[in-house]
């Protein structure tokens, strides 16, 4: 009996018992759908993460005030701290120092408003973060010195406030002040999204965070990537000195190495993938057992058919193949349905915007092949025992079976 004939008769058997076939496939459908969807989300998440880190500058170190409760006396980071780090004599390994200060603020233009993250920056930030000017210009040193009331809009904020109009030159209100838009930025993607505004650090300090010389975060970059460890020790000694921290006492600031964060997030993601794999494996095993069970029932029900087929010349191999292919086809159909549902799910999810985050599930050809391969494999494995039982049946006894 040819493979084609076997496939045809397998399809007939599946189709002639639609409800049962569907219920049997359900395990595989759910398993494949869940795994494909989760894996595609994982891949989408990973892609987003990579974009985020590229935007943030993966080689930068971020200094922020310690949140450790054990540290009792904390001196906030200041603009002076940032300037001290630029001193080549005490911190020769540091090339870029970019202090920032952030706060949430509601900005309005005409009838449109948006609640966004406002960040006070110095122009040097462009050496750390991948800001690309879309229209107008970026913040300049003069803006910082003059505490100008100017802002630069993130891509999405520009769209929300001004629609398709060019925002450059427009006046935007925020927290009781007016700011002139001098530029907009290109789309960046990643977790931060594009819903933000930038303004000169000094303007931020005086207008939005109640004066003072404080900053929230200082990003620094090493002269070269092999000097990251020296940067950490230089930052530590400069800041401990400026913050009057006695020897033995803990730092009142923390230094975050983005590479470490990236590595730990990737480890988390790997763990997540492993977990998804386990969930998938379990659902496929359950689905496989369902298929085995129904194939055993089917062999019993069709004992007479097997007897007839053997009487007119079917060999063991023919019967074996018939039931094996039937199990594989059943499972593959389930896999295809599951894959279809997953693709639909991914499509629907891609259209839903999750706040600022833009995670787009990615269904790669690799996942598709693996899902279908695994479906066929599950069918073959779970069909083997029932198929052997069918092939071994005695023709006379089978013919007598009612």
């Amino acid at each position: 009996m040819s493979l084609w004939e076997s496939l045809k008769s397998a399809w007939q058997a599946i189709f002639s018992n639609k409800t049962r076939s569907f219920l049997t496939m359900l395990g595989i459908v759910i398993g494949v759908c869940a795994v494909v969807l989760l894996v595609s989300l994982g891949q989408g998440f990973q892609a987003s993460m990579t974009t985020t880190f590229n935007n943030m500058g993966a080689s930068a170190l971020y200094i922020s005030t310690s949140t450790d409760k054990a540290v009792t006396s904390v001196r906030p980071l200041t603009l002076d701290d940032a300037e001290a780090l630029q001193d080549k004599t005490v911190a020769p390994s540091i090339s870029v120092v970019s202090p920032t200060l952030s706060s949430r603020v509601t900005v309005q233009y005409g009838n449109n408003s948006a609640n966004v993250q406002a960040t006070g920056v110095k122009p040097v930030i462009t050496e750390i973060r991948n800001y690309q000017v879309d229209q107008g210009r970026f913040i300049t040193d003069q803006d910082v010195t003059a505490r100008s009331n100017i802002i630069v809009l993130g891509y999405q904020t520009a769209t929300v406030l001004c629609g398709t109009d060019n925002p450059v030159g427009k006046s935007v209100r925020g927290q009781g002040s007016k700011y002139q838009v001098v530029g907009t930025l290109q789309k960046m993607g990643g977790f931060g999204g594009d819903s933000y505004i930038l303004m000169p650090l000094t303007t931020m300090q005086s207008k939005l965070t109640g004066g003072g010389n404080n900053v929230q975060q200082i990003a620094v970059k090493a002269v070269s990537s092999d000097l990251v460890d020296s940067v950490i020790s230089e930052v530590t000694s400069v800041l401990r000195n400026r913050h009057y921290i006695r020897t033995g006492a803990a730092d009142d600031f923390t230094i975050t190495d983005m590479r470490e964060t990236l590595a730990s997030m990737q480890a988390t993601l790997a763990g997540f993938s492993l977990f998804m794999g386990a969930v998938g494996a379990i659902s496929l095993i359950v689905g496989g057992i369902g298929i085995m069970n129904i194939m055993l029932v089917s062999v019993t029900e069709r004992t007479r058919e097997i007897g007839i087929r053997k009487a007119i010349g079917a060999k063991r191999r023919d019967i074996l193949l018939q039931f094996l292919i039937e199990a594989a086809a059943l499972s593959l159909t389930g896999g295809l349905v599951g894959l279809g549902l997953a693709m639909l799910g991914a499509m629907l999810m891609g259209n839903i915007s999750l706040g600022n985050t833009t995670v787009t599930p990615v269904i790669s050809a690799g996942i598709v092949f693996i899902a279908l391969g695994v479906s066929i494999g599950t069918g073959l494995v779970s069909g083997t025992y029932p198929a052997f039982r069918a092939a071994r049946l005695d023709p006379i006894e089978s013919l007598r079976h009612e």
Partner: protein
Amino acid sequence: MIELKNISKIYDIGDVKVAALNNVSFTCEKGEFISIMGHSGSGKSTMMNILGCLDRPTSGSYIIDSVDVAGMTDDELAAMRNRKLGFVFQSYNLLPKLTAIANVELPLIYSGNNHRRQRALAALEAVGIGKRASHKPSEMSGGEQQRVAIARALINDPLVILADEPTGNLDTQMSHNIMSLLVEQSKKGITIIVVTHEEDIAAYTQRTIYLRDGIIIEDKKR
């Protein structure tokens, strides 16, 4: 062409041994039309199963078409059934989900033949139900189903057709139609062996073998 020599078939049921066939010897030439008669339990079906290579005897040898069947594997027996033997059963034994023509095609699938559709249709036409080709067994009368079964038995041009009570489920008129059909095939040179309870069915054949308790008690030419 068919030769049974000292064939015994013994069933072990617990302590008791039942000899369904007891040292039976029997020969038959090509083209003979034979009936086997006997009471229920006399061993007719057992003999047919052995003749049909569906079952193996406990002892004795069976030679068909100059080949001793004894040493054959299950798959070789399956090939034998497929190419040289045709079966007709009392309960037709058609696959209920397949159409008449698909049922007739089945043996050709297992022997890997081409042009199956045409050949199956020709076989159905030869037994007079070409028009019923696309009907399922449940849509046909018993007589029609038995004709499909005969077409299926004939499709691979067998040497022997083995029919175990082929008219057992049919009314008198149908029974005679089916027997006429078998007579027709017999005239073409096919060897036919029919099991029956009824004398007027056996009357269609040229020779009758009477079985009792697994022994041939009479073998008469008509």
